[in-house]
């Protein structure tokens, strides 16, 4: 408890786009309840704060920490460990913290090919430059965070109390979670068991989607912009569009398919699904109409980037976690790190 007797609240933005931070403000007047019930002690996007201030806090003194973004570099990991130590309830907030999210797709490539794309591509003037974790200047030594070969989810680095999926989590779900935590603080409600997924449902997006579903026979997967006509009442997958609804956790209200856009799977795997991509792959392949390898391959050509389609948000949290090059680079780094710290 702080001087004014309020429980403390923190939020941190790691490797993500920052949309989760905006989403918290998107709960409208509920944000006043957050302010009325919590003292915000650390929230870099909203207020000035130094990491040293957090280090100086007693362990376990922050009641609730929302952590959004994945673990891309050593700074993200340091903050994850620090906030874990200082927080009673640590929430992996949003798709990136829960499953790696879009930045996790970089796990398909090893570091050098990522750097080549970023620093040698047409988007920059500084051709051939590579970030250096340590750099000498006349004034002394400069340090920047070390880039990791494999992006990790928050739970792959520290234990996480609750997972709140979504890119970003839907405002009504955030508001419901805020309400629940406030009630629990006043002894009027019980928090779910640690490790629970909160602010989402247990079924799939298809369950919430009002579009009509019949037997699916897909002759060709199409890109949405190539279809002349899209039936507004019929299942998008049935129309040959790779909609991720069948494998994706419900809770968003099936907003995208209702608006005529494909579900991209931001709420992550539905209840009981070990590997999101495998489940989605299974769902897509099962409805392909074709019995010879040639017919099937022709239909599958409509999914030009299967790994990106199946793991748009969940690659870092999948069984393989990424491509072989990145995973092996990480293993080599860990071996050399262990060797260096063994004597």
């Amino acid at each position: 408890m702080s001087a004014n007797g309020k429980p403390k609240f923190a939020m941190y933005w790691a490797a993500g786009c920052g949309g989760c931070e905006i989403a918290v403000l998107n709960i409208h007047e509920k944000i006043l309840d957050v302010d009325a019930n919590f003292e915000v002690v650390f929230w870099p996007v909203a207020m000035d704060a130094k990491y040293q201030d957090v280090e100086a806090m007693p362990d376990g003194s922050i009641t609730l920490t929302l952590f959004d973004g994945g673990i891309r570099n050593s700074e993200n990991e340091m903050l994850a460990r620090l906030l874990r130590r200082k927080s009673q309830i640590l929430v992996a907030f949003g798709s990136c913290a829960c499953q790696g999210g879009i930045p996790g797709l970089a796990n398909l490539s090893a570091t050098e090919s990522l750097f080549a794309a970023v620093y040698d591509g047409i988007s920059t003037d500084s051709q051939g430059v590579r970030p250096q974790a340590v750099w000498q200047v006349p004034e002394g030594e400069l340090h920047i965070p070390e880039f990791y070969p494999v992006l990790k989810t928050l739970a792959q680095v520290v234990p996480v109390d609750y997972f709140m999926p979504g890119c970003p989590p839907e405002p009504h779900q955030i508001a419901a979670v805020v309400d629940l935590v406030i009630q629990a603080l006043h002894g009027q409600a019980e928090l779910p068991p640690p490790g629970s997924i909160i602010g989402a449902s247990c079924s799939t997006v298809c369950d919430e989607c009002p579009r009509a579903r019949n037997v699916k026979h897909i002759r060709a997967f199409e890109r949405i912009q190539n279809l002349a006509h899209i039936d507004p009442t019929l299942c998008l997958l049935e129309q040959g569009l790779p909609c991720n609804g069948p494998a994706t956790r419900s809770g968003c209200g099936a907003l995208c398919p209702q608006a005529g856009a494909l579900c991209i799977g931001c709420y992550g795997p539905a209840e009981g699904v070990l590997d999101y991509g495998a489940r989605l792959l299974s769902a897509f392949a099962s409805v392909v109409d074709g019995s010879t390898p040639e017919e099937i391959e022709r239909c599958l050509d409509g999914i030009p980037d299967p790994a990106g389609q199946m793991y748009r948000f969940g690659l870092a949290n999948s069984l393989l976690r990424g491509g072989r090059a990145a995973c092996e680079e990480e293993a080599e780094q860990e071996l050399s790190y262990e060797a260096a710290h063994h004597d």
Partner: protein
Amino acid sequence: MTDSFEPVLIGFTCNWCSYRAADLAGTARVKYPPNIRLLRLMCSGRLDPTFVLKALASGADGVLITGCHPGECHYLEQNYKALRRYLLLRRMLAQMGIEPERVKLVWASAAEGVKLAEEITRMVEDVRALGPLNWPQRHNGAAPHADATAIKEGTA
């Protein structure tokens, strides 16, 4: 180094055909290398691609999926589903840097013990030539969904 490498393959067999083909190979004393660990499913259509990914992520060097010939599925057409899933999975695994020889789909009827033994032998040699997959395990950090109460006690 690769001289001493013995690949570990996981083989998924169908109760109605390939499992019996393996059985037939056994009773007929047809030899195949012991590098494959056969698991019986009721049908190749039962094969969730998760099984393949889990096998590869947990240390297998290759996965063999077997089922009834097209048109001969005990459950009418589930082997076609297995084929479709396999073809899509193969595309995805290629993007992740896994050689196509490491995951194969083979049809084998209950009478084809010799054929199954040959396919297993060939795949073991193919994977031996590729070398270990040795998919890196996740090292530091906690398991997902780890019990948070235990940690809080530890850090308090």
